[in-house]
């Protein structure tokens, strides 16, 4: 079995000698046509432990040091090198176009947290200390209240991200939003940033953070462009 980490252009720097990926397997280069792939031997264990995810991302990060790769989602394994190369060939034009689009860029992230978390959505029916509804009407009214409070929270999260975006004032940056990824976090924003502008981005996010008293805004990255492939 062969595990795939990322896709690059043929001729770009190969994995450093001795680089190890998931489960300690040596990472090597496969090349076919205009593309190269960083791969290692796969194993039968597919559970995505945090350690294995870190190992996968560490290989992708190593590739990012020399040229922007297309990071592959964890878990892409093939029975043989031949089958992996067949899969790459099927969409090689698409991969080349994507490499062209993200080349010279990295993904930077912003995490936007509320300083004081808004009231959580109303509990759904039959949860916790609530007695079961006594009628169908009461059941539906509870469902409506629960949905309304979820919608309110989403609107507050979207408003928080809109305010942060306005303060950042970089409308030209490609971005991807994730609302309410976990408790206390209004949202995550991924930006595609030129590799030469990482420090400037971090400084801009620090400035944005200072502009708000009700939000904490923190930068992360650089990452390979997971959100933009």
């Amino acid at each position, binding site marked *: 079995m062969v595990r795939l980490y990322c896709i690059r252009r043929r001729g770009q720097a190969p994995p450093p000698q001795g680089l190890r990926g998931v489960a300690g397997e040596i990472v090597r280069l496969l090349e076919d046509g205009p593309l190269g792939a960083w791969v290692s031997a796969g194993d039968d264990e597919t559970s995505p432990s945090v350690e294995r995810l870190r190992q*996968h*991302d560490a290989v992708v990060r190593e590739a990012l040091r020399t040229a922007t790769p297309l990071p*592959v989602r964890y878990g892409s394994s*093939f029975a043989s090198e031949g089958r992996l190369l067949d899969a790459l060939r099927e969409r090689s034009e698409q991969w080349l176009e994507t490499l062209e689009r993200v080349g010279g860029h990295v993904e930077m992230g912003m*995490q936007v947290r509320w300083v004081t978390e808004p009231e959580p959505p109303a509990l759904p029916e039959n949860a916790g200390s609530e007695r079961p509804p006594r009628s169908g009407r009461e059941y539906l009214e509870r469902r409506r209240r629960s949905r309304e409070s979820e919608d309110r929270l989403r609107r507050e999260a979207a408003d928080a991200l809109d305010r942060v975006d306005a303060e950042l004032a970089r409308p030209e940056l490609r971005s991807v939003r994730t609302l309410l990824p976990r408790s206390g976090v209004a949202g995550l924003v991924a930006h595609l940033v030129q590799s030469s502008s990482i420090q400037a981005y971090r400084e801009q996010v620090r400035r944005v953070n200072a502009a708000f008293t009700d939000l904490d805004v923190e930068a992360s990255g650089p990452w390979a462009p*997971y959100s933009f492939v």
Partner: protein
Amino acid sequence: MDLVNRVLDKGVVIQGDITISVAGVDLVYLGLNAVLTSVATAKERLGRKGIDVFGGERAPGADRSA
């Protein structure tokens, strides 16, 4: 959490070999966000039902998965 969000949920998706053919319909068995068992266990369990699990391991009459 940033790491998990990216590496598990984003990135290029290329259909690999972890698929099952059931009545000629390819299904992605191992959802990357909800892996329930190891490949070995999956092969053991599903092979007994005569389902084509991996390329090269065909149940009689089953179509080869893509």
